[in-house]
């Protein structure tokens, strides 16, 4: 549909985001024997293009002769209006193929605030938004990403979800859908039922939620051959999946315009607020040799001069120092001016040392995430950074030429007192004081976000702070920070935190709220200029749902959660125990380097942590409470990589 689209692009903002043409773009061959996938990011191109998950699946599917995958992103409101005015649908950016012609439209869902955009994209694809209203001629609507761990709020709109790593699951789904396609797409229910038998796939329509008043009492399968519990998928060995092989290089500016190399997946730091760290266990490192070759080949192919080594905490990568050193010293073609960035810095001086080694450019700002202002609070959330760790890190940074620090904190955490909140200002002031020893222009920006409890974390039982309470804490902190020279404060809108909370732990009834907000015009809710809290409150009321009950209420131990029929491998009693430990201010060590406490993630799937070293990386206390300033041998047994070559210990 390029010919019809092209004249519209003359009239919209940033038209380059709709043309495709990226280096790495594929032009797949669509044919009767192949399942066509439209991999869709329900936010703008600038945000969606760098998404690695989507790019990985794009390549894996296009390597199959029986699949053809293209990409789509949510058009901005100006183009959407143009499309709707002339009756054109959502389209792929690769070959500008209309969305309704695809067999599957699959969405990456990574934030609760994009839920209304999912509905909008389905509608723009000219597909009925509710699953029950679709027939065989409509594409199947799939979804994956971290939000899949509570699929219920979108359960009325999504035909199938994939829990966990998608590398293997997409191929299995492709086979099921192709069988159905070759049979002439008989009834839609039959393919959904078959999909529900694929490991890691959850088909909401195959499960019936029961309620007793407000309370959810059960979610059970409709048929005996549909599994009671859906287990997440976990790729055992990242070495087998060196994707993306041809990272897309956009022609226009995107949020992360650089080469990304994923160095490991999973995290066992055990921060209790962090859903990503819980649901992606165990830790699986990529062999250092493969990381090096992915950097080298990627830089040569893309022409990027920046590489991001991605993971949930890259300084924890066993071979971080050698990989970084090798990359910086590599003088082969194209590697001359490459800088390496670590998007997730650990808070300690060792990490700053690495950052100093690899930041060739100007040392303007560094970002750390202590998350809480007092040691007590950090024990509650199990982010076991001692004040010395932070101050050493900050001292190290200022002394090596950095002039600005950005510190991330959460407020609205369990057991939080005003002393904890004000502790944030105290930490920031002390950091400025350290900085002023080195430069008169030392400054610290405190960035404060409201905490939203997430499924499959120890805090899933916690009643979220109210909007009023979050606002009170923000003002308390702001008033205190105002008096402090060199400290600046930014904060996230508490209203957005509450809406995240509605969707984060909501049940299937919340679907009506999401649909209501979307029908009232609520789109791009993660964009502050479009976010509309009143629409959400109105929609809750219109549907007779209680905001207090869904967000602010503490849950009981044996309460049935909307995600209890799903599994991220974690035992519910482990999470409950961790919640009790949290309230008792008891920390929990990182199980990569300490004995197993049986959270369930490894044992349940018969897989193990894949790490290259028995020695935790040097620096800070590493959550062990011990001084590990120079690295420290901890007596644990390391398990070998599951198969084939690669690192073993």
């Amino acid at each position: 549909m390029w010919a019809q689209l092209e004249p519209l692009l003359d009239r919209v903002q940033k038209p380059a985001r709709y043309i495709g043409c990226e280096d790495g773009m594929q032009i797949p061959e669509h044919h009767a024997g192949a399942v066509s996938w439209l991999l869709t990011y329900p936010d703008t191109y600038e945000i969606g293009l760098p998404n690695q998950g989507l790019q990985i699946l794009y390549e894996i599917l296009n390597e199959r002769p029986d699949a053809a995958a293209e990409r789509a992103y949510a058009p901005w409101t100006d183009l959407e209006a143009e499309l709707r005015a002339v009756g054109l649908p959502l389209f792929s950016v690769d070959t500008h193929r209309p969305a309704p012609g695809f067999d599957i439209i699959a969405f990456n869902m990574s934030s609760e605030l994009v839920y209304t955009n999912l509905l909008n994209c389905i509608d723009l694809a000219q597909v009925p938004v509710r699953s029950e209203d679709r027939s065989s001629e409509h594409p199947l609507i799939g979804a994956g990403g971290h939000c899949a761990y509570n699929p219920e709020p979108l359960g009325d709109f999504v035909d199938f979800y994939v829990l966990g790593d998608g590398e293997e699951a997409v191929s299995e789904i492709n086979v099921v859908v192709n069988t159905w396609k070759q049979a002439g797409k008989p009834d839609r229910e039959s393919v959904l039922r078959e999909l529900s038998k694929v490991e890691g796939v959850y088909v909401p329509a195959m499960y019936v939620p029961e309620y007793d008043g407000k309370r959810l009492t059960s979610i059970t399968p409709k048929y005996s051959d549909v599994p009671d519990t859906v287990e997440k998928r976990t790729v055992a060995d990242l070495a087998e999946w060196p994707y993306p092989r041809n990272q897309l290089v956009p022609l226009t500016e995107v949020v992360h315009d650089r080469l990304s190399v994923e160095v490991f997946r999973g995290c066992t730091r055990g921060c209790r607020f962090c859903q990503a760290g819980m649901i992606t266990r165990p830790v699986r490192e990529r062999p250092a040799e493969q990381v090096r070759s992915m950097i080298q080949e990627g830089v040569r192919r893309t022409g990027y001069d920046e590489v991001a080594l991605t993971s949930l905490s890259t300084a924890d990568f066993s071979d971080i120092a050698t990989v970084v050193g090798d990359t910086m010293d590599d003088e082969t073609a194209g590697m001359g001016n490459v800088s390496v960035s670590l998007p997730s810095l650990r808070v300690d001086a060792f990490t700053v040392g690495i950052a100093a080694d690899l930041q060739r450019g100007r040392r303007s700002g560094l970002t750390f995430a202590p998350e809480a202002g007092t040691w007590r609070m950090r024990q509650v959330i199990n982010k076991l950074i001692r004040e010395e760790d932070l101050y050493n890190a900050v001292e190290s940074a200022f002394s090596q030429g950095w002039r600005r620090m950005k510190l991330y904190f959460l407020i609205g955490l369990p057991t939080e007192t005003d002393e904890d909140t004000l502790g944030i200002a105290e930490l920031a002031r002390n950091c400025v004081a350290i900085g002023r020893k080195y430069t008169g222009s030392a400054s610290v920006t405190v960035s404060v976000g409201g905490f939203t409890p997430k499924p499959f974390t120890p805090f899933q039982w916690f009643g979220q702070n109210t909007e009023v309470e979050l606002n009170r804490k923000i003002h308390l902190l702001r008033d205190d920070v105002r008096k402090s020279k060199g400290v600046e404060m930014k904060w996230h809108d508490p209203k957005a935190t509450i809406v995240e909370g509605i969707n984060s732990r909501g049940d299937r009834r919340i679907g009506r709220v999401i649909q209501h907000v979307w029908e009232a015009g609520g789109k791009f809710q993660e964009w502050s200029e479009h976010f509309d809290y009143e629409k959400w409150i109105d929609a809750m009321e219109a549907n007779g749902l209680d905001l207090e009950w869904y967000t602010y209420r503490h849950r009981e131990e044996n309460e049935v959660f909307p995600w209890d029929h799903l599994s991220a491998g974690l035992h519910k009693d482990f999470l409950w125990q961790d919640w009790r430990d949290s309230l008792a201010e008891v920390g929990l060590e990182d199980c990569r380097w300490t004995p197993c406490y049986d959270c369930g993630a490894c044992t349940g799937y018969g897989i193990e942590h894949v790490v290259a070293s028995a020695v935790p990386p040097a620096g800070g206390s590493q959550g062990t409470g011990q001084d590990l300033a120079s690295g420290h041998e901890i007596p644990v047994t390391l398990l070998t990589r599951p198969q084939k070559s690669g690192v073993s210990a």
Partner: protein
Amino acid sequence: MSGAAANPNSGVALKARLRYSKLGKVRFTSHRDMARIWERTLRRAGLPVAYSQGYSPRAKLAFGLALPTTFESRAEYVDFNFSTDDVDVTGFAELLTPLLPVGVTAIDAVVLRGDAVSLQQAVTSTTWLLQVEAAPEAVLSWIERVVEAPAIELTRERKGKETTDDVRPAIHALRLSEPEECSDADDSLISITAELATQPRALRPNELLSVLAPEFTFRRGRRLHQWIASDGAQLDPLSAGATQTPRAELCAS
């Protein structure tokens, strides 16, 4: 080329100027997008691009006058600075085109004289192909009115200040396009060729199309040439800046 010590060009051993075209879907990329695309392309080609000094080294590239987003071009230019003179400029078209996005084609390149003036300063006029939707008579009569007007007052805003100038002197030529100028363009539209001055103040295509109440709608634009006036002749930027003046495309205006 020895002794690259001259101050503004420190670390630069060789300068080259390249002409490229930008046609098709890539017309929706911006001038800034193209700058990033060129930086990556030169790194991929392994060319010894000179970098600026300081904390954030930037590749030393210099672009000409910005092409409006959505316009195509047959005549874009970029100046490269290299840190060594071990560079085969004649092979650029073949080397770079496969590394560029589809629709961007490197056409020709020359080694630049050390004293060549930057594109931004040197270019004096630009020839545009402007396609409009209209009745042919309406276009012809508008062209006639513009060409015959002794003066054309245009009020424009710059830096928050409104100024009114006579822009007629900036219109060097205005006529219906020759077939060879628009052979591959949309033939349902009427094509106008306009040569507009870029100095002292550029007259932009959209500004031209707003004077004397034209009765048509602008649809597509394409840059056909950039010119450097020199002693009464017009040279294209490659000829004007080359170390020797090879097969200079002289063009009486």
